[in-house]
């Protein structure tokens, strides 16, 4: 259809065209229709249009009546017998319950209004389950969130006075948990380094580099392009065309034949294929079963993943072997029950697990200094001698701090994990702290930490072995180091055992510890008695770098201030070893210590030759 030619909308013609005559047309049409059919229906009275059907439609009637009163056959039978009272059928119940429901609604409304009147202060003074027997309580299907019970009873090993075997069991579990954390942090992926080694590239140069590369690629493309286009433009001769067509044909035929052969082959090997499928199915089934079982097992231990964070179980609360006293009064109980309940809520999936809030970046050196600061505060509580010691520790800390800074990353990492481990250990059981505030004046509060460390060491030794022993020795020293002024036999032993460790870092720290411990004759002799002198000499002999030698010499110098200790050192063959230590250019202190030591031996009339 072509477009209508546009005409002017002005003028009479256009104006007329816009008047609609529909209603007129409609009326005319209707009136003619009425005339033809005999009047409109709207004007006719109802009687002439409808009538009451009085004829009997049996089927409909039956249907209606059946619905009107439905009497079950069983009921009707029972009704006939006057001695048997019919039990109302379920149908009746439904109807009545509907009525009840309405009533109930009213009553509940009333009760709520009453509740509002009586404010919340008085809730709990009515019997809520008064009419539970009525059985008309619309209940929502309660979804059980988890199979874990609300109150999980601790294993028997967590008793305050446990059976030996059960206790060992629980303890092993606790140690394993801790060690898993350590291993996980050790074996986990390395964090992405903040800086990358190498020379910095200036921005301008980078720009140029990129430009060069781009140019090369563009050139290559340009070179390739004309060749391709020329080959494309080549004309195809008829001979060539035919040849290609034939080749295509042949290939098609060949492929078809091949397919056929393959299919026939497959048909031949149908039984094996069926076998394979069956096997596959079985395997799938097995895998599914395994997954299902694994999931069920997992759900017994922890909730499903309900949010951003993973559920982290609370540490097991178990006493160390030393802490078992058999007395309720002396029990070091867990005082963080709130955590336990909260973790239980998380474990049962009632609330999504929250993030672990303790995520402050840990700085070992800072921590040391911080602790040293604490010691300064404590100086008010101790006498002069101890104050001197504390001051010594402060100096020592400063030296150690610098050394730590210079140390390789590996050592720092090690110390960090150890310290973190230790911290979690101590934090998990702040019971000690509570006790500490209670009997601060009477007992050396810090010994507790030492004991804990020693106990941990012992437990670990029992459980895991040598490797752990090394790690725990580190932990113990870390603690002991922090509470230096209170060091006792225990820590002298540990310092000495540190000397036996292969790593020079541990050796050095052990030696420096001994050096600062040996401040009076009794202590010096104690070190000697516990075999510290021999170990120090061994260390000096085996040392491979100057700093280790220096640390050993320093400790020896501290020891020789006592006459007896010097005698013991002489007996252990100190003079030749000291004499044989090479002097070094960087560390002048070595020479100083060496000469000092030798002079001291001469003063005491110990011969180099004897």
């Amino acid at each position, binding site marked *: 259809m072509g477009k209508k030619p546009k005409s002017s909308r002005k003028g009479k013609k256009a104006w007329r065209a816009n008047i609609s005559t529909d209603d007129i047309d409609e009326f005319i049409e209707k009136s003619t229709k009425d005339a033809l059919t005999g009047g409109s229906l709207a004007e006719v009275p109802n009687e002439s249009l409808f009538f009451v059907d009085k004829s009997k439609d049996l089927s409909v009637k039956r249907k209606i009546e059946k619905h009107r009163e439905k009497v079950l056959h069983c009921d009707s039978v029972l009704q006939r017998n006057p001695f048997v009272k019919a039990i109302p059928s379920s149908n009746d119940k439904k109807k009545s319950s509907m009525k009840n429901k309405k009533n109930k609604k009213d009553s509940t409304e009333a009760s709520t209004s009453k509740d509002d009147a009586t404010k919340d202060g008085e809730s709990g003074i009515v*019997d809520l389950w008064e009419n539970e027997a009525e059985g008309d309580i619309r209940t929502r299907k309660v979804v059980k969130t988890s199979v874990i019970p609300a109150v999980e009873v601790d294993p028997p090993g967590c008793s305050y006075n446990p059976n030996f075997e059960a206790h060992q069991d629980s303890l092993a579990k606790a140690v394993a948990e801790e060690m898993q954390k350590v291993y996980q942090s050790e074996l986990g992926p390395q964090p992405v380094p903040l800086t990358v080694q190498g020379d910095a590239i200036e921005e301008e140069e980078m720009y140029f580099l990129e430009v060069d590369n781009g140019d090369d690629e563009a050139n290559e493309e340009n070179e390739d392009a004309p060749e391709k286009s020329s080959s494309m433009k080549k004309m195809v001769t008829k001979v060539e065309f035919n040849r290609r067509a034939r080749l295509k044909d042949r290939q098609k035929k060949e492929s078809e034949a091949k397919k056929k052969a393959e299919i026939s082959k497959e048909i031949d090997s149908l039984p094996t294929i069926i076998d394979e499928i069956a096997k596959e199915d079985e395997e799938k089934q097995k895998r599914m079963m395994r997954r299902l079982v694994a999931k069920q097992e997992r759900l017994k231990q922890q909730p499903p993943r309900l949010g951003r964070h993973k559920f982290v179980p609370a540490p097991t609360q178990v006493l160390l072997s030393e802490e078992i006293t058999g007395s309720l009064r002396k029990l070091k109980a867990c005082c963080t029950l709130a955590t336990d309940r909260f973790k239980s809520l998380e474990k049962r999936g009632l609330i999504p697990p929250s993030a672990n809030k303790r995520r402050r970046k840990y700085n070992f050196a800072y921590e040391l200094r911080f602790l040293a600061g604490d010691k300064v505060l404590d100086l008010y509580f101790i006498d002069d001698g101890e104050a001197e010691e504390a001051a010594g520790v402060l100096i020592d800390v400063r030296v150690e701090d610098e050394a730590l800074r210079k140390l390789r990353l590996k050592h720092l990492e090690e110390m960090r994990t150890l310290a973190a481990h230790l911290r979690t250990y101590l934090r998990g059981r702040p019971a000690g702290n509570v006790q500490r505030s209670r009997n601060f004046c009477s007992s050396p509060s810090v010994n507790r930490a030492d004991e804990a460390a020693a106990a941990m060491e012992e437990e670990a030794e029992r459980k895991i072995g040598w490797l752990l022993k090394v790690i725990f020795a580190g932990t113990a020293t870390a603690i002991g180091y922090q509470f230096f002024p209170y060091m006792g036999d225990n820590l002298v032993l540990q310092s000495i055992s540190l000397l036996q460790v292969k790593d020079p870092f541990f050796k050095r720290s052990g030696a420096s510890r001994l050096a600062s411990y040996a401040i009076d004759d009794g202590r010096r002799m104690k070190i000697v008695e516990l075999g510290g002198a021999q170990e120090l000499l061994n260390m000096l002999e085996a040392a491979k770098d100057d700093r280790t030698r220096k640390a050993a010499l320093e400790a020896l110098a501290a020891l020789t201030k006592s006459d007896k200790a010097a005698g013991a050192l002489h007996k252990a063959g100190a003079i030749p070893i000291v004499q044989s230590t090479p002097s070094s250019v960087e560390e002048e202190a070595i020479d100083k210590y060496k000469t000092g030591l030798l002079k001291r031996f001469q003063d005491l009339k110990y011969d180099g030759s004897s």
Partner: protein
Amino acid sequence: MTKKDTAKKTVAKLKKNKHYRPAGKKREGNAARYMTRSQAIKQLQVNLSVFRKLCILKGVFPREPKKKVKGNNQTYYHVKDIAFIQHDPLLEKLREQRAYQKKIHKALAKKNEDLATRLRTREPSYTLDRLIRERYPKFVDALRDLDDCLSMVHLFAALPAVERLKINVERVHSCRRLSHEWQAYVARCHKLRKVFVSVKGIYYQAEVEGQKITWLAPHAMQQVLPDDVNFSVMLTFVEFYETLLGFVNFRLYHSISVKYPPILDPRLEALAADLYALTRYMNGNTKRISEEQESGSTKPEHTRGQLEGAQFEESEHQLPSNEDRALMHLIEEDDDNDDDEDTKKCKKLFKNMKFYLSREVPRESLLFVIPAFGGVVSWEGDAAPFTEADQSITHQIVDRPSQGHMYLSREYIQPQWIYDCINFGVILEAHRYLVGRVPPPHLSPFVDNEAEGYFPDYAETIKRFEAAAKNEVLPMPGVGKDDLDDPQLLLAEGYLSRTEAIEVAERKKERATSEKQYLEDLKQEVQGHPDATASIAVEGAQVEEESSRPHLEQVAEDTDGTALMMMSRRNRGLFKAMKIAKDKKKAKVEKLKQRKKQIAEST
């Protein structure tokens, strides 16, 4: 033309398909059924804290859909759960509260103190009664879910009130009151069954209306408030649980016809002897009510709106004059006709024993535990029923290295004795628990040794002791070992050890075979055969007997197999999981035994 037709067809098809959604906007399955938390918050038009509160109060918890449409880092809720919250009037109430709080803020900001205080007096509040009724339609449901409730209430009763965390003093006090009310009921009705003192706290298990209820109460020491706990969440839980426990206590008190809430002696309350005050109240109340019932003249019920003074007067009237008698009264009750076997046993455990607690023992726990097993107890303090000098005291509980002045008429024992006696259900010999000694290990009563298949040493000694005690009490006259069908004897024998039980079974089998043989002999005699074939018959019986055992095993295996086949895939998986767990347990027991052997060898 054809194009038009196809278009029409597709339109018709679309109309037919009810759930059509344009491509890219498909919402079916998990996408339609679950929504994330932020979506839910948007839908409910509340803020996060209110949403959390609503979820906890309504009992709506996050779910884990199979497919997490919005990513793995989201928390998902079921759409119907959220709709369920949306229809609750509580939602409106909380919104109202928030709006009202804004009004107060506004008044304060405009320095209109008068208005603010006036507004504060009429703050909208809500009750949780309806919610409790909705979540626990039956009383039994409430009892089943009481574990967490009790632990939480006991915990909050021991927490310090900290304003920063909104743990206010009223809350702590009401928790304390509720926990004491519960304990008083349990002690009064002798419903306590097990106690386990662990490092974490003290586990109790009671059996109320057939439901085993376990809860954990903290040790009597300062609790710390760790910073990794969200206390607003905890407080919401506690708010709900407080109401729940209130209703439960009401019901339980009324079941033993004691008025609730109890009215306590203000003097005892001031001395923090709530539990004792409660027990006294209960005894007085029940006695009075029973008297009233006997006389048939019931007093008109006092409404709660009565004056305080009148209440106290009444309470003093209720309280019995003789304190000591009130305690003794506990045992003299003789309404045990409806008690079950366990309750009767528990009631009698510490009968005719009088305990005195020294200063250093955990008072709260022991004051609850000892009366629960029928003992009479007093402590060192002001309102104590009797003093240390009382001659009738049979046991004094001490926890110190040595006792200075000792009365010869009583035993000085450590508190663990009480707990162990309760757990084993017998009065143990006191010499192992004497003052200054290291007591034997405190074993967990929650471990089913029989099922575990491993008995710790001390448990075995006690078992032997128990068996010996039983023999002493009821020596079975005239019961020979042959009367194997006697169930009591069988039980007693099976009690001692597994191996003996097996022996018993074997003996029984022997007896059965001999019986059979005898019958067969009889038959043969009846048939007229001489006893020439008797020996052959015996052999046959033996052969049959031998073959029957593996045959039975085979049958059992077969039935297992068929059952396995009949199970659904899921159930089969669960069954396997069960089996694996069982194997693990067995391995554990083996390990324990081995360890024990090693220790024995090394020492």
